[in-house]
C-alpha cells in the first residue's frame, strides 16, 4: 500500500496531464460548436506542453539563468533549458493555429449564419 502511494506521489502529475489532454480531446470530438472545438484543441496542446515542461523540472533547481554565485559546476542547480525552449516554440505555433482557426470560424459564420457544425451541415443538405 505504501509503495503504491509512493508510486502515485511520484507519477500523479503525469496522470493529471493525461486527464487534461483527454478533456481537450473530448471537446474536439464531442462538441458541435466550432469555437468549443478550438478551445478543446488549445487545451490538448497546452497539456502536451505541460508534459514537456515537467520533464525539465529538477528538485531544488533554480531558474535556468546563470547565477554567478552558484556557477555551472553542477548542472543539477539549474532546470533543464531544452524542454522550455521547445515549448516556447510550441506555444507560438499554437497561437498561430488558433488565429487561423478563428479566422475560418468567422468566415463560416458569415456564410452560414451559425457556428454549430450540425446546423451548418443541415443547412447545406437543405440546399
Amino acid at each position, binding site marked *: 500500500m505504501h509503495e503504491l502511494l509512493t508510486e502515485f506521489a511520484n507519477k500523479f502529475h503525469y496522470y493529471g496531464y493525461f486527464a487534461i489532454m483527454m478533456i481537450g480531446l473530448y471537446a474536439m470530438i464531442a462538441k458541435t460548436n466550432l469555437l468549443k472545438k478550438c478551445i478543446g484543441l488549445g487545451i490538448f496542446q497546452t497539456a502536451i506542453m505541460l508534459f514537456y515542461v515537467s520533464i525539465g523540472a529538477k528538485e531544488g533547481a533554480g531558474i535556468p539563468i546563470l547565477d554567478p554565485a552558484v556557477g555551472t559546476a553542477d548542472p543539477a542547480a539549474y532546470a533543464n533549458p531544452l524542454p522550455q525552449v521547445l515549448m516556447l516554440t510550441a506555444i507560438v505555433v499554437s497561437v498561430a*493555429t488558433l488565429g*487561423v482557426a478563428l479566422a475560418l470560424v468567422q468566415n*463560416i459564420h458569415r456564410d452560414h449564419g451559425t457556428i454549430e457544425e450540425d446546423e451548418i451541415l443541415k443547412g447545406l443538405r437543405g440546399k
Partner: protein
Amino acid sequence: MTAQLPILTIAPLLFGAFAVTAGRFLYRRANYALAALALAAAFFASVLLAVQTLTQGPAVYFLGGWPPPVGISYVADPLSALMLAFVSGAALATFLASKAEIETSYPLKNSAFYALFLLAVAGHMGIVITGDAFNLYVLIEVAALSGYAILAQGRERAMLASLNYLFVGSLGASLYLLGVGYLYIMTGSLNMADLSGIIGQMIPGGLSGSTALAAAWGVILAGLLVKMGLFPFHSWLPAAYSFSAAPAAALVAPLTTKVMAYVLVRMIISLFTPDIAWSVPAMNTLAVVLATAAILYGSFCALAQRSLRKMLCFILLAEVGYMVGGAFLGNRAGLTGTIYHIFADLLMTLCLFLAAANIERGTGGRFSDMGGFFRRMPVTGAALVLGAASMIGVPPFCGFFSKWYLLTGAVAAGSYAFAGALVVSSLVNAVLFFRIFEIGFFGTAASPADPADPANPAEETGHGHAEHVPFFRDEMSPVRLAPLCLVALSLVVMGLMTGQIVRLVVDPILPPGLG
C-alpha cells in the same frame, strides 16, 4: 559553396516569400515571376544536391555550426536528396501550370497566395531533409498552416472542410509532438541519429523491452497516420481537397500525403531502425489490416463518385493504403516498394491532378459534362491516359514496378489479403479510368460547360461557344501543357529507370541485413 547546398535548397523559398509579400506593395506585376524564380532556384539547388549526394555520398549539414546532438542538423542522403528534387519539381510544375487559375481564383490576393505557396513548399522540403525530431514538428506546422489557408478558398463547403482539416491536422501534429516527448523523456535527445543509437542500446531486443518507447512509436505512428488520412482517419481528406480551388488542391494533394509517408519511412529506417520498428507483430498486422481496408474503401468509394477530382481524392486514399501497408510488411521488398511508390505516386498524382485541373477548367469536371473531351483537349487527354495507365499498373510505367515490389513483399510476408487488395484496386482503377476514357472518346457534351468563374473572360479560345462544334480544338495554352507533358513523360522515364533508382537510392539507405 557546395558544402552549403542543403540550406540553399530552402533559402530561396523563404526569401522569395518575403520578397513577394513586400512586392505586393511595391511592384505587384513582378510577383509571379519572382515566385517562379524562387521555386526554380530551389529546384535547381535540389537537383544539384541530389547529384552531389549520389556521386559523393551523404552529407550532414550543421545549422548554426553546432554539431548534431546539441544543434540541429540537415541530413542529405540519397533518399532525402531525391525526394527534395521531386518535391520542389512538383511544386514548380504546379505553379507554372496554374498561373491563370491562381489569378482568377484569388483576385487581389494572389501575392498572399504566392507567399503561402512558397512557405508551404519550404515546409515540405524542410520535413524531407531535417534530421531533428522536434524541428520536424515545427516544419509540419509550417507546411500545414499554409495548407489550411490556401485550401479554404473555393466552393461553399471549402471553409468548413478546411477547418475540419485544421482540427484533424493539428491533432495529428500534436500526437507526433507527444510521441517526441515520450522519446525525449526516455532518452534525453532529439536528434534522429543520436536517438537511433540510444534506442538501439536501451532495447536491443525490440520494443517489448520498454512500454514507454513502444508507446512513443505508437503515438508517433498514430499522429502520422492521422496526417496522412489512412482509412479510419480519412474523413477530412476528400472534403478538403475536392471543395477547394484547383491550384491549391494540385499543390497540397500530391505533396502532403507523400511527404508524410516519407516521414513514416524515415522513422522506420533512421529513427527506430527496421528491427525495432517491426518488433511488435500485433502492430504490424494492425497497420497492414488498416492499409488493406483503406485500399478497398478508397477504391470502392471512387467508383461511386460523379466528378473527376472527387474520384481522384478517393484513389489518393487507396494509395495511402499502399504506402502504409508496404512499410509494415516487414521485409525488404515491401519497404522498397513503399519508398519507390512514394516517388511514383507523387508523379502520378501530380499528373492526374494537373490534367484534372485542365479538364475542370474546360468542361467543369463533372462526368456528365465531360463528354468528348478527348477531341477537344487531345494533349491533356493523352497526359491523362499516361497517368491513368501508370495508376492502373501497365508495365513500362512506374506504377507497375511499385506494385510489383509491393506484391512480392506481400506474398513473401504471407499477407495474401493485402496482395489481393492490391490486385482488386488495380482492377477497380482500370474500370474507373476506362469509364472516363469512354466518356472522353464516345460521350457527347450534353449540357453546356460552366466555367469556374463566369465573370472571368476565358483567355484561351472562349470555350463557352465551342460545345456543339464536334472537332473544335479547345486545348489549354502551351504554358499549362508543357509542365503536364513533362510530368507525364517522366512517368515512363521513371519506370524505365527503376533498376537504377532502387540500386542508387533505396539500397544504400536500407540496412544491409534486412531480409
